[in-house]
């Protein structure tokens, strides 16, 4: 297992730059997510690491070693494809055993080579050696597929196929595990189970993992660290909490969780309080900014609906409920304040009243919770 380092990576496809300035430093044993909207270059980044694309410039190091001259079949990166890419003509066992067969092929004499080739074409003709048998069965047990070893992959459900793909990648004991949107073909419930499975396995094996997704919730709930990408560039790298509470751009603030983003102008900055004019409202923030035009970011759960008792907020606004959405343990209100629509999340306590649209409300935000970008 090893660290993965990308330095100044750049990739052009026939003159069009799809990746630039990619710098990543992924630690050994880390679960690292690449998060970004579709088409931002996540897959391309991963394919560069796996060796299926040659970077236009920049270096890739796996386990401290520059892999520029290593072809994809010598990089020892276990990859789980979005489509799983299982071999449809082989059963589950043969699929998982594939890399072990290849390893045996490489160290065999010509006569034994023929035997291994025959086994790969038809495993009924040539038996597997004990070590391979054991290794494959162990990993199948680990992903709970022992009973399906002799089935064709087409006879399995989506979740089972996913686990075969995972087992097939893990059995080769890769330096790094690459997963490209592995959960996107599963239904919602299965997706949640598989998140836990993947995370558990990763923790057990302490395997360096790069996980590509466009689903921020997935990235936030699974990864140790996340790189947010957009248009072929990395915008910010950080832990999930880091990205959530200190987004560097409004794009990230919006992409990672929901945000109220308002355009404003700094009118004064005294003591440790910055006052920003937004429309005909003034908003106070504890953050300092040395530019005049700023974006004000407030997370929906940081806006409090005031009920007359706890009124002492530095920022208060009058508004009218436009829409109330009940989301289980929270209620989300869209509140019209002046020209702006603010999203407000409140915790729902059973028995409490949900405010109706048209109702007037007062909202409060403490200056610590107001971000300026």
């Amino acid at each position, binding site marked *: 297992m090893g660290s993965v380092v990308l330095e100044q990576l750049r990739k052009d496809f026939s003159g069009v730059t799809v990746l630039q300035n990619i710098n990543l430093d992924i630690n050994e044993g880390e679960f690292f997510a690449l998060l970004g909207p579709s088409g931002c270059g996540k897959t391309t980044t991963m394919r560069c690491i796996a060796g*299926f694309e040659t970077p236009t410039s920049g270096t890739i190091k796996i386990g401290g070693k520059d892999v520029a001259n290593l072809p*994809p*079949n010598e990089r020892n990166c276990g990859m789980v494809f979005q489509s799983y890419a299982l*071999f449809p*003509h082989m059963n589950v066992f043969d699929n998982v055993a*594939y*890399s072990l067969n290849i*390893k045996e*092929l490489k160290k065999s004499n010509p006569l034994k080579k023929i035997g291994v080739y025959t086994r790969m074409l038809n495993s009924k003709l040539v038996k597997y050696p004990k070590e391979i048998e054991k290794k494959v069965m162990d990993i199948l047990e680990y992903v709970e597929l022992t009973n399906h070893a002799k089935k064709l992959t087409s006879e399995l459900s989506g979740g089972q196929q996913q686990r075969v793909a995972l087992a097939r990648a893990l059995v*080769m004991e890769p330096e790094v595990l690459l997963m490209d949107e592995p959960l996107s073909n599963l239904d919602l419930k299965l997706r949640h189970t598989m998140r836990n499975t993947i995370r558990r396995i990763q923790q057990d094996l302490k395997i360096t993992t790069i996980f590509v997704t466009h689903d921020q919730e997935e990235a936030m709930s699974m990864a140790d660290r996340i790189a947010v990408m957009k248009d072929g560039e990395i915008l910010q790298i950080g832990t999930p909490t880091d990205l959530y509470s200190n987004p560097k751009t409004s794009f990230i603030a919006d992409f990672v969780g929901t945000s109220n983003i308002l355009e404003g102008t700094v009118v004064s900055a005294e003591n440790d309080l910055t006052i920003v004019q937004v429309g005909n409202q003034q908003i106070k923030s504890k953050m300092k900014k040395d530019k005049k035009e700023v974006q004000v970011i407030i997370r929906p759960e940081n806006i409090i609906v005031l009920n007359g008792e706890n009124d002492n907020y530095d920022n208060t606004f009058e508004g009218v409920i436009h829409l109330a959405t009940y989301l289980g343990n929270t209620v989300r209100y869209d509140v019209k304040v002046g020209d702006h629509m603010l999203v407000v999340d409140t915790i729902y306590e059973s028995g409490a009243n949900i405010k109706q649209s048209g109702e007037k409300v007062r909202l409060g935000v403490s200056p610590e919770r107001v971000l300026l970008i």
Partner: protein
Amino acid sequence: MRKIKSLFTGLGLVKLLIYGFFLLFLIIPLLSVFLVAFTNEPINLFGSLISLEQLQTTMNQFKNATLDNFKSIFSYGHYFEGLINSLKLSFIVSIWVLVICIPIAFGIARTNMPFKKTISALVTVPLVIPTFISAYAFIIMFGRAGWVTYIYEKLGGEGMLIDPYSMTGIAIVQIFFFFPYALWPMVAAFKVSDISLEEASRNMGAKGWLTFITVTFPLVIPGMLSTALVIFAVSFSDFGTPIILAPSDLNLIVVDAYREISGFFNWGGAAILTVIMIAVAGFVYWLQNYMLKGRDYGVVSGKPKQVKLIDHKALTIPLSIFSGFVVIVPLLAMGTVILQSFATTWGKDPLPNGYTLDHYRTIFTSSLGNIQNSLILAAGALILSVVLAIFVSYFVVRYRSTTLDFMTTIPLIVPGIAFGIALIQTFNTAPLQLTGTAIILIIAYTIRRLPYMVRSTVGTMKSIKQDIEEAAVNLGASTLTAAITVIGPLMLPGIAAGSILVFVTVIKETSISILMAPAEWAPMSLAIFQNVLRAEYYSAAAMSVVLVVMVLVLQAIANRLSGRNGL
């Protein structure tokens, strides 16, 4: 640097070899025949590459190049007449094929006519019979001593109903044996033509037949024209029918070209005819593509609706009778050949005088060699096409090699006789003297049939997603190992179906066999041809039956394979 190095290892080397193959056996021969049309004598391009002396000779040949051959074509001489006759024949055939296909296609696509299933099945019969056998079947039906002539005279007719040895005879054979090529595209056109438009027309009060003429018909016209062009090209390139049936006073370009080269060794004349044939076939191909361009016929606006099949007896019964008649003619022809193969003698009577297995005994003793040759040549072509098709489809699908894609469509356009002449001329002298060998014969068969094989393998290759191959590589396999253990097994059904088709079409192949096969490698088709020329009709019949049975069996296996592999 890495790029250049990779060009000479592994797949890069394979690609070079494939380009080399096409260059040597397709591009250079076509180019060379074009040059010969100017120089009027064979030029030795390969010799010029290795010998200065030869190069000098070739240069002199070019210096003496003239436009005489081109002039002679347009001076309304013999060649011009041949061209005009051929165009006339193809025109007549394509028009008639359209005319007889419209009712049958309509019947199949839009009505519940009686015996629809049977008719649809029997329509494929003409496709398994090589045209030189159909042509010869027409001789023994319509000829002076044929049973049709017998019945015709009994009914009070005089002479022959149709003289098979005439333009009409050739046209009739081609019409009845080529119409299936047009039928299925037309059935498709009738099925997809905009049904909601038709309904709208009917809702506005138009009568059924009026709707057909004003709405349905115009909608299928583009499809029909392009189909007519296909028939035109097939008829123009057909060698089997004219070579058997064309009387000596009827010039047809394919027959002329054959005679120039195999009778008179007139290189210049054969070359100019070849150039003309390729030009016509190329033009027709271009026209057909041009017409289909941007026209995705089969576009149904609004919701696609299920067609309501017509049940009107007054319409379906005549349609069924007409279709039955068209379908039965090729069946009768084949039936006549079968009867003849078992006949002791068969004079001008409705049935043979007696029955015997002697003719089969004869061919399985004295002509066994021909059967063997056919099998060996077909197997050779099969192996070569499998190897080529796998790699070509790999490059076409994975690396989007448009050059290779284009090269494999050239043989579809070039008429067989033209391609044969080009090869004979190019490989006539040292250092690459291959004319008259089995090798060049196998190569010629391969190149001619490769497009069909490639179509089959490209289809299968496309159904194998690229990430499956990448997964194998990611797991440590080299590209070659991935190809052997993953791509190969997945392509197997497609390869099997495609290669049987190659095998079948090589056995049926006429023009290349007759033109290029040396005596010691004479395949069945050449043997049948020679027997017909010598009027040894009984052994020709027996050999034809063996050939058609082989084709039928293999075709059935191929259909089974490609059906099961219906990915």
